[in-house]
């Protein structure tokens, strides 16, 4: 970190797989793109939605209308126009692009049909009335559309630049054009990324950090922590092992809620023990999220989860969870054993056969799995076998339903309660356990077809109740990220949406 040059040095965990906003899916790309690009709306210094390329807007039940500022420029000096957005959105939905985030456009009229190739991209319900006016038509109610426009897949793209580079677009620092506060000035693959202030950016004067340098790419938290200790980088994530060392050195330890929920998912496919409700109730009485968080994980900032909705999910005015508190089920071995007896009777078996727990290969996932294994054995006399798989194999097994229980996680895609709620609707492909509950589906439909906040949130309260009562999943914890940060670096936003961490509003104190 260099106060004179207003330069911040960081380490990246991994290299972004791509910086093409239409196909990017990961958090690193989202972080870089949040600095390189600007959408219609952006997240402001206090995490509120603020004007970006759009100067003002109007949101109705059946569509949205945006008026763009005239001084927004691409890095080559050309103005950012409504056409760039229309092109980008059509491009992302084009089946040839094969964008995995295409589904996020689906509230827009005809989006799904375009994405499936049934309609031409020009049929998409979005139109540039002029260079500075953009009109969007909805196919279904979308009260959260404004927050979507800050999401990376909604960023504008230049048709001519994309045509120039084709498949190599955004593969190197000289192969993309940006419209945000920073320019990509260096990209040495696997080693070094560098961002410098973009003089063409319309509000360049408000950007106080001149350079963001990322000369280290390592996913090893100890390495990053050592770099921080050595004052080479301004921020570093912490994990359980590093926490006490950071405390000992008197570093300021910060944390923020990442907005993601971790949970145990049960398999409801034919013939699985886990499809039995009594069995799931037994697991619910056995696993205490508070013990998991306080004893096993042992990091401040991570919270025990009791609901499908993390506390960061917005409700009518405040947090949804404050407005609709969740019922907390206390752990009780005696009750759990009673439920197991009931499950055995219902299933007509004398012993519960060994069950498979599919787990990831991160250290925390393994510890968590070993804890469950021990709990099942000592608490219920059930053998839980851990099937530890590296990333892709675990996803493949989840997709195939090759598990009894799986520890899974979900991070919100957009700033609305529905990103969590419809996860276990019977038609959702991400419902890996194939949970199928007509009542659950009905409440989801009620919320999806309504524009009235109260109706929607009442339906969500019903969903929350079903999750506690029927246990389609067992929430375990709401994730928080711990990190150390140079105390002179101020104003860094830690965001759930819109790129994290965000240096757009940061500065270095002298």
């Amino acid at each position, binding site marked *: 970190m260099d106060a004179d040059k207003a330069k911040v040095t960081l380490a990246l965990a991994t290299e972004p797989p791509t910086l093409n906003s239409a196909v990017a899916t990961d958090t690193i790309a989202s972080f870089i793109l949040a600095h390189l690009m600007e959408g219609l709306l952006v997240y402001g210094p206090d995490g509120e939605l603020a004007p970006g390329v759009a100067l003002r807007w109007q949101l109705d039940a059946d569509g949205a209308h945006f008026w763009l500022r005239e001084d927004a420029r691409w890095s080559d000096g050309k103005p950012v126009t409504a056409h760039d957005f229309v092109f980008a959105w059509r491009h992302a939905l084009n089946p040839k692009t094969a964008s995995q985030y295409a589904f996020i456009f689906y509230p827009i009229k005809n989006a799904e049909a375009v994405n499936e190739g049934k309609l031409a991209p020009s049929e998409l319900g979005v139109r540039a009335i002029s260079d500075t006016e953009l009109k969007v038509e909805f196919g279904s109610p979308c009260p959260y559309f404004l927050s979507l426009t800050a999401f990376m897949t909604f960023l504008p793209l230049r048709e001519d630049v994309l045509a120039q580079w084709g498949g190599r677009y955004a593969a190197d620092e000289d192969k993309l054009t940006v419209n945000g506060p920073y320019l990509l000035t260096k990209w040495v693959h696997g080693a070094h990324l560098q961002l410098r202030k973009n003089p063409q950016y319309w509000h360049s004067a408000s950007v106080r950090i001149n350079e963001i340098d990322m000369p280290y790419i390592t996913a090893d938290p100890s390495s990053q922590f050592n770099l921080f200790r050595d004052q080479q980088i301004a921020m570093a994530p912490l994990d359980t092992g590093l926490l006490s060392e950071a405390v000992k050195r008197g570093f300021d330890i910060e944390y923020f809620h990442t907005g993601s929920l971790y949970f145990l998912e049960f398999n409801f496919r034919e013939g699985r023990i886990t499809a039995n409700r009594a069995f799931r109730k037994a697991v619910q009485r056995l696993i205490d999220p508070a013990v998991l968080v306080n004893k096993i994980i042992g990091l401040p900032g991570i919270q025990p989860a009791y609901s499908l909705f993390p506390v960061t999910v917005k409700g009518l005015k405040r947090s949804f969870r404050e407005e609709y508190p969740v019922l907390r089920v206390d752990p009780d071995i005696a009750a759990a054993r009673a439920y197991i007896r009931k499950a055995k009777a219902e299933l007509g078996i004398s012993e519960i056969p060994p069950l*498979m727990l599919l787990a990831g290969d991160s250290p925390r996932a393994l510890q968590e799995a070993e804890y469950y294994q021990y709990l099942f054995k000592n608490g219920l006399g059930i053998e839980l076998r851990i099937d530890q798989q590296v990333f892709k194999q675990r996803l493949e097994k989840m997709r195939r339903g090759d598990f009894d229980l799986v520890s899974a996680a979900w991070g919100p895609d957009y700033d609305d309660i529905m990103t969590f709620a419809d996860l276990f609707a019977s038609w959702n492909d991400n419902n890996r356990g194939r949970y199928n509950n007509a009542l659950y589906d009905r409440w989801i439909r009620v919320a999806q077809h309504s524009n009235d906040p109260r109706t929607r949130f009442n339906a969500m309260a019903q969903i929350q109740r079903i999750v506690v009562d029927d246990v389609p999943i067992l929430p375990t914890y709401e994730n928080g990220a711990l990190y150390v940060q140079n105390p002179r670096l101020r104003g860094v936003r830690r965001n759930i949406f819109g790129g994290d961490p965000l240096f757009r509003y940061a500065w270095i104190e002298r």
Partner: protein
Amino acid sequence: MAMSVFRFARRTWASEDLEHIAPVPLPKMATPAVVLSSLVVIALLLFVSIGPLVWRQDPSQQWLSQISAGPSAPHSVRLIRDNGPWQPPVSEPVQSLVVHDANTEFVRLQWPQIEGVKRYRVYRASAHKAGLGLAIAETDKSYYQDQLQLSYQIYRYTIADADSGLLLLAREVRPEAAISLFEAQLQGLVPVGKSRRHAKWLEIPGHPLGTDALGRDILARLMAGGRTSLFVGVVAPLLYISFGCIFGAIAGLAGGWVDQAAMRFVDFVVALPFLLFMILFRVAFGIGPGENGIMPLIVAMLMLSWPGSARLIRGQVLALRGQAFVEAAKLAGVSTSRVILRHMLPNVLPMILVAFSFAIPQAIFTEAFLSFIGMGVSPPTTSWGALCNDGIKTLLSHPRQLLLPALFISVSVLAFNLLGDALRDATDRRAGVAKA
């Protein structure tokens, strides 16, 4: 790790050296180095086999009340019944930072509402260390229940204004050693049932080497892990050296195109980048449901490591085949199998023994390395490498958790290496020259 690759290569070269040495009858083996390293090996074997009978703790038992604790003797702990959410009695406003109850399950703090402060930040530090310590929570209430990995030591709590950073109140607290009712029931210390009449204090066992990040006894885990490591370390080389010997012997005895083809195949396998293929095989085999992961590990090692001994034995067989005593035996009408058993085997056995003793540390390292990168055994089975993998995460705060298993790996590797060296010196006549 790089060194593993290199060390594997080394054994191959060493055995190639041996190809050119004429076989010698078994010389005197009981040098001091052999005796000493054999003793260490025996001690290690006793540690992992007899150890668990003496130290009867379950290596997978998790004492959640004693996560990452230091060495401890058996002691008594208080039984805590209610460790759910808490809030202080409304009727009692307090004048200072009050501790309602303090044990290793929870510390309940309450402080007076201070005007102008919207949010409080609660810091916790070890009393004997300077500084505020860890910010464990931020709250807008004037009370807090701390449950975050409490251990048996004196803490200093500090309450600060979260917005201004102004320090408001501080106090030292010594929590009592405790165990929750849930955990006590889980460990079978108290019966599960409706009965409310439990003893107030319970006895729990000690941990001479402390506990790991899941509260498991490290001594017991070292024993259990050693069983896996030494098992893999001995069985894998045994298998691949046997296989290599048979392969090499067949090639050497058959000669002609069979020999040519066989040796070409050996060349192919040798050319496979060892660790890369190890990882690839490991992922390809996967670990089936509930398997401990030892078998895939051994199979992968078998598939990649046999060529060294195949070459060694083939060379020996070729050398011996031309020698007078074998020719003589053949002429005397001794059957081929008898020639192999009575004349060839005794001549190559010392060499195999040396190769074997060098292969063991190799295999231990390979297992450790694979477990270290998370591609080794699957829990609840553990190994020294897996223990290192667990331990490296807490290297800074609890170095013991890494250093102990690393020490065991080092000692066993060292012992087997010394044994191999000593055996080689004993069988290698040239060693006498070098040593003179």
